[in-house]
């Protein structure tokens, strides 16, 4: 029978594999190919120029700045988001103790759950529009208006938020964490609920308080979810395109004076406004390599033994 199983399986796989090759694999291959050419993007001719584009990348101040900015987000964004999500999930599920009712979340946790998940429902475009108003640089901005009303900020010198080279990356970080934390809170909540209650009850009987319960029981049992979340958040930190383009100054975003350039928006500008698709493809390849390295490194760091329950 074995020889007939193979064509059977192949028959089912044929269509998806063809689609995958056309729409996923071939663009990858083409990008790598074009990254070795001087293709401008608006003609169907190009010259092969070897590794010229990659040499240019290493000498390109703005691209190197963008790599640093991405690294900043890559280090901080996942850590902050995960810690916050873990804290919230713990409080919602097992944080509310102090009486004899057993294991449950803090009072009103079902309401908090909805409130905290809400940002996840919003599309990135809406988030941009929302935070444009929050971080407006004049007195009509939500934050500036509040700070001025409280007398913390001089109405003639409102805070510049995205227009300040010192604040812009932190503001971006804040928006990213705000929009991401709800989803991971739900993810961790679900994982926490699948941890058998007996384990917590045993800890309770042994007199463990919230802290040790979290670090000795919850965290180890959630390790796998956390490592997956870390990889996903890493990808988001490497992207950031829509937020930078919509929220930061200068046409195409990335300002002020390149203080918030990310690889993705430098890539977009290089391709679509400067007409250097070859160079942009080289940036794309670099970004893909970073993403792969990130996944490998993070999965290795977080690899632990799996606990079955």
């Amino acid at each position, binding site marked *: 029978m074995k020889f007939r199983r193979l064509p059977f399986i192949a028959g089912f796989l044929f269509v998806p594999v063809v689609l995958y090759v056309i729409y996923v694999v071939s663009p990858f291959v083409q990008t790598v190919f074009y990254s070795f050419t001087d293709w401008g993007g608006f003609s*169907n001719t190009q010259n092969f120029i070897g590794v010229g584009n990659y040499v240019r990348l290493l000498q390109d101040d703005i691209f190197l700045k963008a790599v640093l900015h991405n690294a900043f987000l890559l280090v901080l964004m996942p850590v902050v988001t995960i810690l916050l999500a873990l804290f919230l999930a713990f409080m919602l599920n097992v944080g509310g103790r102090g009486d004899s009712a057993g294991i449950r979340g803090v009072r009103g946790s079902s309401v908090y759950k909805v409130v905290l998940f809400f940002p996840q429902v919003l599309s990135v475009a809406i988030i941009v529009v929302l935070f444009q108003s929050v971080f407006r640089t004049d007195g009509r901005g939500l934050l500036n208006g509040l700070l001025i009303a409280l007398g913390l900020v001089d109405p003639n010198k409102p805070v510049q938020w995205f227009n300040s080279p010192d604040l812009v990356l932190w503001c971006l970080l804040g928006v990213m964490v705000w929009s991401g934390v709800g989803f991971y809170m739900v993810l961790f909540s679900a994982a926490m609920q699948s941890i058998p209650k007996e384990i917590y009850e045993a800890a309770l009987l042994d007199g463990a308080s919230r802290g040790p319960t979290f670090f000795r029981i919850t965290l180890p049992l959630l390790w796998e979810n956390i490592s997956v979340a870390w990889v996903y958040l890493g990808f988001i930190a490497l992207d950031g395109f829509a937020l930078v383009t919509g929220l930061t100054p200068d*046409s195409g975003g990335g300002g002020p004076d390149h203080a918030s350039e990310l690889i993705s928006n430098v*890539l977009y500008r290089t391709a679509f406004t400067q007409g250097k*698709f070859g160079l942009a493809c080289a940036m794309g390849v670099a970004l893909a390599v970073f993403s792969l390295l990130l996944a490998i490194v993070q999965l290795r760091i977080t690899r632990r033994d799996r606990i079955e329950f």
Partner: protein
Amino acid sequence: MPNSSGSEFTRRQLIQRAAALAVLAGPAAGVLSACAGGGGSAAGPSGTVSPTNPFGVAEDAPLDVVIFDGGFGQDYAKYDIGLYSKAFPKSQAAFKATQKISDTLQPRFANGTPPDVIDDSGDNQIKAGTLVNSNALTDLQPLLDAASYDDPKVKVKDTLLPGVLDVGTYNGKVYLLNYGYTVYGLWYNAKVFKEKNWTPPKTWAEFKTLAPQIKAAGIAPWAHAGKYPYYMGVPIMDWVGKVGGDQVLIDIDNLKPNAWRVDAVKASLNAVLEMVHNGWMLPGTEGMTHIESQQAFLDGKAAFLPCGSWLENEMRKTTPAGTEMTLLPMPDLTDKDAKPYGTLRAEAGEPFIVPAKAKNQAGGLEFLRIMLSKDAARNFAQATSSLSIVKGSADSVTNSTALTSVNKAATAAGDNLLHYRSVTDWYPTMINEWEAATGELMAGRFTADQWIDKVQAAADKVAADSSIQKFHRDK
């Protein structure tokens, strides 16, 4: 956002950019999914050449037009397509309007199947320099030499305002027909000025006397779209040209070494910095979008706003009743300015192109010839409250203070016009640095010298980069 129609940054744009990114950077690869080099033929079907059909349009060839859906809207294009269909009833002429010219059309260029006519405008325009670099455009000389639509004895080029072809000319060849005529300057609300008994300043000294009075009345003297520093770059460059004369701007455009290190540049930057340091800017304006700052101006929070003549049309829906938007040329900066009072930057904008690989190239040229007819030009002025490059296009429109003041200022300026290309369309990498430097200047983080160093370095970098095609102009 250097475009004459002042496109608005919209949610849709953002979603599409996000989608474009999903393709571009997600797998960091997809840029090219649609870009496999394809074939494409230049010459399409052709008909018989006759006096009424100078390009030999094939009567049954379809016409494919793509319009930028921006400040001018799309009603005028509908009208022009109607005129074309009347002339060629058998042709299926149709247009599509989009805000994403580059995202939509780049794959079609790459495939060798571009549309026949494109209105290449907006924030997402394909930079003209890039297209010229790729030999992707049709030389428009045959159109200019053809008989005009209304009078066979007059050539098309003789029906246009003076100097309007300069902007679309690259190394001596006209590739872009900039259809709108845009005038730049300072805007003020004449109604407020009348109420407060203020006189619009003609010199920098007058401005400096007036500004403290404006501020004392609780109004900021100046607002600008700091988030997009291009808007503030325009008055800076206007003053450079006005103080230093044409040659300074020509040297800058031709990337002459140290072209930016001249007194005129410094004088202009120092004047702007003086306003910043005197606290004459609307608080927070250095981070505001064009829409936010323009609305603040219309709401009476600021007295002056630098912008192009698309302002009225762009803000029509939210302009308070009774506003009398009026355009003022840049004031004289010194008493020895090289150019007289009234000198303006007036330029043809909204570039229309016929791709070199258009299937119905003759039809594309014919469509532009129709757009330059008196009928189409009058309709454009009426529908958009804007001037077109056709002589006398707005003479019959009188119901707008803005358009009337623009018409008056342009007439008064005569030949005293300013041009600069390197920082508006020739060299995208330089535009980027020029904007960044201007943003820093307006935020008070740059001195005039730092601005000059940064922009000069960007110019030197472009000059030294052999992969960038250079342009040149003598006048």
